[in-house]
């Protein structure tokens, strides 16, 4: 025991900590619980509709939603594509604006005091109410949709990144200053890397919000897309078709969320949330 300790202290080797491997079993353990839960909910839903005899236009059964998915597949794919491209563009705007605001706010006390309260105020705006006004300003093209999506989703990105930029270890900053680091170098070497995990948790929340934002945006300023489709199906009480469109929207949301997770693993492999 003592010999081992001494050997370690004087340059002996420690086995590197093993990383959790993506074995088939590990993947199955990851995928099985949500899948089982989903299947159970759908089964209960189907059972409830069958037993209660509720009308399809009020509460369609999963089978009816599946039929609607098949029936509308062409429309859903093209509307889904429109909405997806809006979401990606709006999300990109949100990232640029959110990160830029965070860097500005954390760069000086004065800017922080001047801007931070207004960032919070921006989230008090009832987006669906202001969306038609945005359309008046910009015209009936993709711009109001991008603005609405970005307005809904930039906030968690900005707030998380601000927290992350503030979270830098003060002692590390001191150490780097004794090594000659200036402001810019401190940002690159310490502050930015510290903020990245925070940024990514903001990105995940924002991904979900961007999907909702796209639906809001299409309710007022669009003649295509899933949000528009939901509205028009809804007005015709085609409830099963509404649910089908929501299902496509959910797939987009989950895919976007997963994509952010993958990017996080690739870009900051040193940050391990699990294990």
């Amino acid at each position: 025991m003592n010999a081992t300790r001494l050997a370690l202290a004087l340059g002996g080797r420690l086995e590197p900590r093993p990383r959790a491997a993506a074995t088939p079993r590990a993947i199955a353990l990851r995928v099985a619980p949500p899948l089982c839960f989903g299947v159970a909910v759908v089964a209960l839903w189907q059972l409830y509709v069958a037993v209660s005899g509720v009308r399809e236009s009020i509460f369609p059964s999963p089978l009816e939603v599946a039929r609607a998915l098949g029936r509308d597949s062409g429309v859903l794919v093209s509307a889904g594509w429109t909405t997806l491209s809006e979401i990606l563009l709006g999300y990109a705007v949100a990232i640029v604006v959110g990160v830029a605001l965070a860097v500005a706010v954390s760069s000086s006390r004065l800017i922080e005091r001047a801007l931070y309260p207004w960032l919070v105020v921006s989230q008090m705006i009832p987006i669906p109410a202001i969306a038609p006004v945005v359309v008046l300003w910009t015209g009936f093209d993709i711009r109001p949709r991008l603005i609405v999506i970005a307005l809904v989703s930039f906030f968690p990105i900005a707030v998380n990144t601000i927290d992350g930029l503030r979270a830098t270890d003060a002692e590390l900053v001191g150490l780097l200053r004794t090594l000659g680091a200036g402001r810019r170098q401190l940002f690159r070497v310490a502050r930015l890397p510290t903020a990245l995990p925070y940024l990514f948790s903001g990105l995940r929340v924002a991904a979900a919000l961007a999907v909702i934002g796209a639906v809001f945006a299409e309710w007022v300023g669009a003649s295509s897309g899933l949000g528009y489709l939901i509205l028009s199906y809804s007005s015709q009480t085609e409830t099963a078709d509404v649910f089908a469109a929501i299902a496509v929207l959910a797939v987009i949301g989950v895919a976007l969320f997963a994509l952010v997770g993958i990017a996080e693993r690739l870009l900051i492999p040193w940050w391990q949330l699990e294990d």
Partner: protein
Amino acid sequence: MKLAASGITKRFADGVEALGGVSIELREGEFCSIVGPSGCGKSTLLAILAGLIEPSAGRIALDGEPAGRLLGRIGYMPQRDLLMQWRTTLENATVGLELAGVPRAKARAAALAEVPGFGLAGFEEHRPSSLSGGMRQRAALLRTFLAGRDVLLLDEPFGSLDALTREAMREWLLGIWDTHRKTILLVTHDVEEAVFLSDRVYVMSGRPGRVQATLEVPLARPRSLELTATAEFAQLRERLLAPLREEARAALGAA
């Protein structure tokens, strides 16, 4: 005189008087230590010498001249290793060279040459999280050494290690010091560590910190751990402990 500080005081904004006039001197190539009770302002003194905080009063001379701005001219290793988890061991070690604008390849080569001596061979590309406590401290020391300053301030570098690792690290540090010929000021609360490593030991009093005793350590070098078992070593240790014990008793009495 490599580094000379005289009459350093520090009163913080909240009124706490951390240092009450500290004077210490380091000759070129010397290894000196500061021991003292916790809260005596040892770390504050190092932060002042590193240029991170300004003293309230006092003079500091580097190489015989009034030092002016010290930040970036003195090597400093805080208590925590502060290794950045987003960098590999080697990237952590080279950060000082990187900040000084040394080309990446050159910085890496310089670090790789020192890696075996610092007991980090095979761990160059590992993240700090996979290093043992002793390795983390050696990586932090390598970072400090590579930055290339003549004077190094080490703030309880082995404080977080277990007793056996700490002992082994002391002997190792003397070897490193011998090959690199740096001027080192080490802060510790471990009297044995101070005697074993140093040419001279400063004993600080409780807050506000002052130097209450100075002890020259005439033990021959190179020193090995066996030295700690000799009567001569025990005598020196006792001479250091006496004022510290008084201090501790007084602190207990006052409380």
